[in-house]
């Protein structure tokens, strides 16, 4: 009840990203088959499925990085706040839809500070005070400020694998995206580093729509509000994570989750 005494229905969860009839190709090989799905804002969505089913290709279509691969293309619509990203300049799309890759990939010639600042600097933010403020905030958001604040000038590649991955998350956050795509961000990391990143993902959903690809089902169960199961480039089942894992509606989903294949 609000002050005027009327019942306020909780507003319907808004879809941040709506995918409509997306198909993706490498040359003549079709990898994503006419896929449609909506992603909620301020929540975590996991994408699971056996390796080679097109998870990476699918999320790479969402920030239009798929098309940078020679002979790769995509058709269909991806609406970001209702606007089709395929009608916007891809450079602008990627500023709004950030991405973290499977293998940590800090820029090898840059310091920790330089890595986080790189997106801002290359996008023309010149004011050092503003850059510094954003760098500090991003490192704090990535839960690594205390670890690195004493040696911001050290090379980014001197960090451990888990720290490098959080550095890459900080680098992505520094350009203030609205959506964060993560492609198996923990697959190269040890369990302790993994659990730090999972905690971080949990915090990030307060501000972002997070879409995470994982082939680790426990991870999906731990961090995701909703889970999508992909198989051979098709969306097989999509729903609340709990539902998917406890009461899958499709036989294929059930056999994947129970480990009968994949």
């Amino acid at each position, binding site marked *: 009840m609000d002050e005027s005494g009327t019942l306020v229905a909780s507003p319907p969860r808004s879809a941040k990203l709506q995918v409509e009839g997306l198909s993706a190709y490498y040359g003549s090989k079709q990898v994503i088959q006419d896929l449609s799905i909506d992603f909620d804002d301020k929540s975590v969505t996991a994408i699971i499925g056996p390796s080679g089913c097109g998870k990476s290709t699918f999320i790479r279509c969402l920030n239009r990085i798929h098309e940078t691969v020679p002979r790769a293309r995509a058709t269909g619509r991806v609406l970001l706040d209702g606007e089709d990203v395929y009608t916007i300049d891809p450079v602008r799309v990627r500023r709004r839809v950030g991405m973290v890759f499977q293998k940590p990939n800090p820029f090898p*010639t840059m310091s920790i500070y330089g890595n986080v600042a*790189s997106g801002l600097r*290359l996008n023309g933010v010149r004011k050092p005070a503003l850059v510094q403020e954003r760098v500090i905030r991003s490192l704090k958001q990535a839960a690594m400020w205390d670890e690195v604040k004493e040696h911001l000038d050290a*090379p980014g*590649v001197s960090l451990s694998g888990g720290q490098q991955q959080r550095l890459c998350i900080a680098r992505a956050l520094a350009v203030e995206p609205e959506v964060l795509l993560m492609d198996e961000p923990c697959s190269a990391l040890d369990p302790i580093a993994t659990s730090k990143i999972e905690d971080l993902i949990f915090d990030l959903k307060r501000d972002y729509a997070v879409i995470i690809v994982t082939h680790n089902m426990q991870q999906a169960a731990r961090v995701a509000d909703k889970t999508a199961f992909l198989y051979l480039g098709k969306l097989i089942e999509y729903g609340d994570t709990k539902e998917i894992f406890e009461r899958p509606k499709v036989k294929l989903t059930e056999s994947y989750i129970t480990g009968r294949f994949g």
Partner: protein
Amino acid sequence: MKFDRDTRRKLFSHVVSVACLLCVGIAIIPLGSILYESVLKGIVVINWSFFTENQPLPCNPQFQSGCQFGGIFNSIEGTLLLIGISAAIALPLGILGGIYLSEFGRHRFGDSLRFFADVLTGVPSIVVGIVVFSLFFLLAQQGLIPTNYTLSVLSAGVALSFIMIPIVARTCEEALALVPNSTREAALALGVPKWKAVTSIVLSTGRSAVMTGALLAIARATGETAPLIILDAGSQFSFQPSAGLHQPTSSLPFSIYNWVQSAYPNWIADAWGATLVLVVLMLGISVAARLALRNKYGEGGVV
């Protein structure tokens, strides 16, 4: 004598090792003798004034008295000018070309450019000299440039740059090809336009290898002689800045070529001194090229 199999195998292995060592020894004899000869004969004339004085008048002590050794100041000056001119043309063009080939040239046109650059690398430098001579001559005939540029430090610098461009472009391309694709994707995913990702992130990741290629191309141009014989065939005077780039200059390779085939003992002695300086200069550039590969972040960066 009869050996068992193991002994035979060991013996064979020893023979091959010794043979390899012998071959290496034979292969480095020329290098060793170049260094030995040029140090032995060059060191005699080298002193401070050898670097500060211009070349001497030819002089034969059998018939004349008061022969001077002079120096190589004007030759060094000419060589530095040639390097400066050719590098100013070849480095920007070569690096831009290398960036194009590596980042944008993954198709038929890029392949033909690559082939063209490789052919150009193999063209004898004397041919490059003749082509540049003809080019300048024709341009002068059309009244597009003054006639006196045809035989000058400028035309020779242009010829050297033609030799450098394909080397710089191909080494730059190879250097950038070593930059992992994940680095490019990381930059693109931050919403950086492709040209900016290439010129700031990819190029800076591969910069030490690009630098090495540039230095090796400079070393090649520093020792190149044939185009100079055609285009920039010496001067006994120092460079006159007021007279501009259409004056001919001397240079270390040309002076050596010129002096060593003369009959004047002072020139022949100076030729050995200039040889030593040239060898040390080239060695220095090669060492610099090696050092460039050790970048700031040690093993972390791409070499």
